[in-house]
């Protein structure tokens, strides 16, 4: 049994995930509106209730990678003076 469910859902702000949700199942947000939730009934119900679109892990990883690469491209295009240690280039993200 897979440990996690992968999907996309738009974070609508307050109430999108509640303290009760956090107590009930694993939940973590990533770039490109990708959410990783525990593979149990409550996690699956949450994703469905948020009009989420379930993805395979590979599909979710591709979305995250594309978003990170866009951020990296934006950083690469910055003037040299803004590319300081205090404004580091976004790093790659690997989903669990």
């Amino acid at each position: 049994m897979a440990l996690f469910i992968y999907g996309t859902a738009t974070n609508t702000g307050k109430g999108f995930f509640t303290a009760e949700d956090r107590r009930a199942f694993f939940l973590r947000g990533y770039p490109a509106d990708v959410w990783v939730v525990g593979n149990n009934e409550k996690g699956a119900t949450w994703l469905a209730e948020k009009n989420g679109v379930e993805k395979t892990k590979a599909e979710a990883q591709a979305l995250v990678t594309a978003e990170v690469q866009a951020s990296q491209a934006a950083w690469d295009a910055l003037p040299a003076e803004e590319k300081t240690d205090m404004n580091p280039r976004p790093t790659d993200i690997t989903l669990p």
Partner: protein
Amino acid sequence: MAEYESIHGTRVRYLTSDPTLTDSSTEGQVWYNSTSGTNKTLVQLKAWSSGNNLNTARRASGAMGTQDAGAIAGGQAAPAYVNSTEEYSGYAWTAGGNLNTTRAFVNNGTVGTQTAGLTFGGESNPPNSDLGATEEYDGSSWTSNPTNLNTARRDLGGAGIQTAALAFGGTSSPTDVTESYNGSSWTTVNSLNTGRASLVGAGTQTAALAIGGPSTVVESWNGSSWTNGPSLNFQLDGGAGASGTQTNSLTFGGRKPPGTTLVSSSEQYDGNTWVTTPSMGTARRELMGMGTAQAGLATGGFTPPSFSAATEEYNSNLTSGTRAAWSAGGNLSTARYALAGAGTQTAGLAFGGYSGTAMVPTAEEYNGSSWTNGGNMGTARYRLAGNGTQTSALATRGFAPSPVSQTNITEEYDGSSWTGGGNNVITGSSSCSTGTQTAGLNWGGAPNLSSSQEYNGSSWTAGNTLNTGRSGSGGAGTQTSGLAFGNTTDTETYNGTSWTSVNSLSNSALSGNGALQTAAIAVAGPGVTETWDGTNWTSTGVSVAVPRGDGIFVVGTTAAALKFGGNPPVTNSTEEWTSSTLATTASTLTTS
């Protein structure tokens, strides 16, 4: 006869319903409940009392049920292992059905009930071998399930019910393997962070605790993965007992490693911290526990060289409410990181930062559910410091544009617009501030500066230096009672004159904030949240949902905090911290 008023200094209150009793600070209150017609009080009763002995002294049996309807099965009764079951009525133990497989050192931790129990794993009667056998109890007989644990083992932890159980840890050699049971078969799931044996479990298949082993480690299971949570006060080994749930648990007995010292003490968990509670009458290891954190049962165990038949009942009227959690707040209008903030969870302020392509001048105000734009700072900047309230904030230092350079500019916010303040005596970025707009405190900065400065509403003056230079740290408190933490594990307090090192954070990556020197909260990107009570940091075992490793900002206290922004990549995410809650139940005063 003395009257209550002359003793307590107040009159007995006349109430139509019991007041909200949140913690032990309300201990001793007395009132008259006119609805029930009774005198009531809050007595923080926590005590062990003796129950009747087991019929067969033994250790390392399977346990199930409650304080007044419990059962144990199998175990070692010197010198042989046994297959017998005993059932507890709340008064006496009577014989139940026999296990099909004689064994000891099975799942440690209550699994199931007296009429729907489950036992798994363990060690066979000598010559010993580790077992994966699983059996179900219906209140009179045991039925073997043909499907064994995938990993045969002994001295493992267990939690859950007959149709939804969890097995974790154990040994031939200490293992981290976790398996989930659906009533018919076992599935291997995510492993413990720390493989170990002689631990004890509590809770359910989707919300369990793995307690102790030869350590103070406690791990929390959310149905998918284990997270390290607040540690025990004392190391436990040798099969302590436990009862209760993931957020309301009791552990008792065991052995104190290294060595052979037996433990009689117990610790109660409220979802946030472990508190030492009264000790059992009989110190012992490899005992069995069941019930709840308010009504627990300890029985059997090993008191070398003999086995124990002693039964003890624990009762407490301290109950747990809910576990702390980060939940979604309204999203920032402008995604950004390396920003600053001020205020509280319900009246927060975010300002400055970097959008990923430009420095941000905008301030945004939070009302507890959504952000709205406030006034723009005169100087857009990031890696600035901020403090104060939503309507009286202070911004200082940071990186400013055109050309990009570090600044000492200070600006003051009045709830609608920013005006210039006195320039900071230090030019630089990544510092931290606390206090108010007219009594502010600023310290540190890149590259790990140790200087501190005080603001009086118009100008900055140099203060004493930190013991540990730091950049991008967290802060809390006031100008005369401040707290600096993060970027390093070292934590320091400020008394208006000098900095003093106090107890450390466990995670140097943490930063955060707090309105009080005694109630700060520290948050890391992917890590767990730690809370400060004025003396110690406690790991809550609770992580944010949208982790970012750089440039988040946190306002508020351990009771109610707000986290917003961060990178990489840049986010507009906001999360709200809700602390764990406690509740107590009132007792009725009677005459005797």
